């Protein structure tokens, strides 16, 4: 049964692909469209990967939406000065915010739900200020950076690096250990506080990268960029089978599967021509169903 539950997200992904390609007469799997889905999923997947590190510890990161906005705004602002500065600044912004999140959680012991929610507010305000209450266009020259191969290599690099760090290094193992049992992990020598800050740092870093990718993709940093992105990430991860409690059953694959699934759904429903007003409902039902089937009740002591 546990084996089955583990592969529910994969089955879901395959089902969605089969269903939608049947409904669209194969249009879904045309190269053009696959590229589109990839384009739309890149930012989400990278964002999800970052948050995976946080959720592996059983914490939440809800600050992503505004972080995407502010890092994008920083990228665009500095791109106007020198295009070369945009990426480092977006990433630095992410790291700084991650540091703040992590420090407030680890050392001030404020629950992550509250910390990241408050930071979400603060950053949204800062985004609006940074975009001068509007939007900052990117130099035209940088639009060419929205290139499939650049994005593909960034995504593959991020996936490989994250997968490596998550699976084959003490970093990832320590983080999952914190999710499985913080006290036991501490008593086994896991530097819990450092790991917590580090997880938010990674999450922030990758979100900064997302911010940059997003700006390059749209050509604009807008005051509304990334609004509710944190919920997209949360749903994608949960859809991909990520347990909210974290721990050793938290898999990095969830980020990829979930991100792809969400992008496939959005794209597929437009292709099939489902009425716009109904698309959300379809998503909601699939979401609940997927979690219902994949949720590992036996390995959770209490369902909150």
């Amino acid at each position, binding site marked *: 049964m546990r084996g089955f539950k583990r592969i529910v997200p994969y089955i879901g992904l395959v089902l969605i692909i089969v269903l939608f390609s049947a409904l669209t007469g194969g249009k879904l799997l045309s190269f053009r469209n696959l590229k589109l889905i990839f384009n739309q999923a890149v930012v989400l997947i990278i964002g999800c990967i970052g948050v995976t590190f946080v959720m592996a510890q059983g914490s939440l990161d809800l600050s992503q939406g505004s972080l995407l906005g502010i890092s994008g705004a920083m990228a665009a602002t500095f791109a106007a000065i020198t295009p070369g500065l945009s990426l480092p600044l977006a990433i630095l912004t992410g790291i700084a915010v991650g540091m703040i999140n992590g420090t407030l959680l680890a050392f*001030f012991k404020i629950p992550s739900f*509250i910390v990241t929610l*408050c930071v979400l507010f603060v950053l949204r305000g800062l985004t609006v200020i940074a975009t001068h209450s509007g939007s900052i266009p990117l130099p035209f020259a940088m639009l060419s950076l929205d290139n499939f191969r650049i994005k593909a290599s960034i995504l593959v690099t991020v996936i490989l690096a994250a997968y490596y760090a998550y699976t084959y290094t003490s970093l990832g193992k320590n983080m999952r250990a914190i999710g499985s049992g913080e006290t036991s992990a501490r008593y086994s020598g896991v530097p819990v506080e450092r790991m917590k800050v580090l997880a938010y740092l990674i999450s922030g870093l990758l979100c900064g990268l997302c911010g940059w990718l997003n700006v390059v993709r749209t050509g604009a940093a807008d005051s509304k960029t990334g609004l509710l992105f944190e919920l997209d990430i949360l*749903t994608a991860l949960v859809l991909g089978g990520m347990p909210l409690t974290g721990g050793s059953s938290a898999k990095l694959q969830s980020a990829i599967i979930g991100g792809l699934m969400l992008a496939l759904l959005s794209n597929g429903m437009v292709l099939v021509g489902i009425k716009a007003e109904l698309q959300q409902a379809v998503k909601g039902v699939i979401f*609940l169903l997927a*979690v219902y089937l994949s949720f590992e009740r036996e390995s959770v002591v209490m369902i909150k």
Partner: protein
Amino acid sequence: MGKGLPRKILIVLILPCAVYAIFFALQPKRFGNLQTLYIMFQQAFLPSISAWGLCFVMSLGLYDLSIGAIIILSAIVGTNLTLALGTGVGYIWLFIGCLATAVVLELVNATVYNLLKIPSMIVTIGLMILYETAANFVGDAVLPYELSIFGRAPYNIIAGAAALVVAYILYNRTQIGMQIGAVGGSEIIARNAGVRVERVKMNGFLLCGLFLGIASFLSVSYGGVIIPSTRMSSILRLFPPLMGYFIGIALKKVCNIIIGIFIGEMVIIMVVTGMVTMGVPTTYQQVITGLFLLAVVGIATKAKTDEVVK
């Protein structure tokens, strides 16, 4: 008991008084007058009522992210019901409509949570999307002015105060409230003591629905119009009550959470109104409110060294 009480009251009043004093000092002409205070007092009720509802769910250790969608959908159903049923004693229909819808929706929340046995945060996100869609299909809520007497003083204060009393009694003086506290404290011990945990959780959601019903009734009376939000944007309605709840939790040691929530909402509204009157741009308001909340919660949270904080 008696001896600590004055001190506690004093501590509780420090926060709102300090905020008031700061803005009064900065803007004595605009902020200080009684009317501003009166208006802020009225405004604090609306988010407080939702927060009281939320409190019953959050006290159980559960989340309800769908409250925004529930308020919207109940207000829309209630209003359209009223308009369809005739408007003689319209606000009674409106009240019943809003209340019944909200309670039914929370019943759905609780049932799905109990049946599917998946975390409440996930359940309520999923259902939030469905409620939003439903609301969008029903249409807008447009309440005629004659039916919205509960949107203005003193009726809104009467309704709000009644809700406060009800919330206080339910939370502190009933079996349901006490059992909610017990299950929130320790599900296992409560179960061992013979508390029927599933039913208590159900009750928590239903009570939340009760207050959301009142909140949606007062919301539509106050603003006159409620337009459905889609694409999860109804979650934006969750934040004001949630902020008050956070402050309520922070003040828990010195005052009852129901009253703490109201004080919290009052303080937040003072901060916002204060900034409006000072002419602080809206964007800075968001930043300042966020930082303020973080500061209050940060100062009040004193986790024990060994405590696990997620």
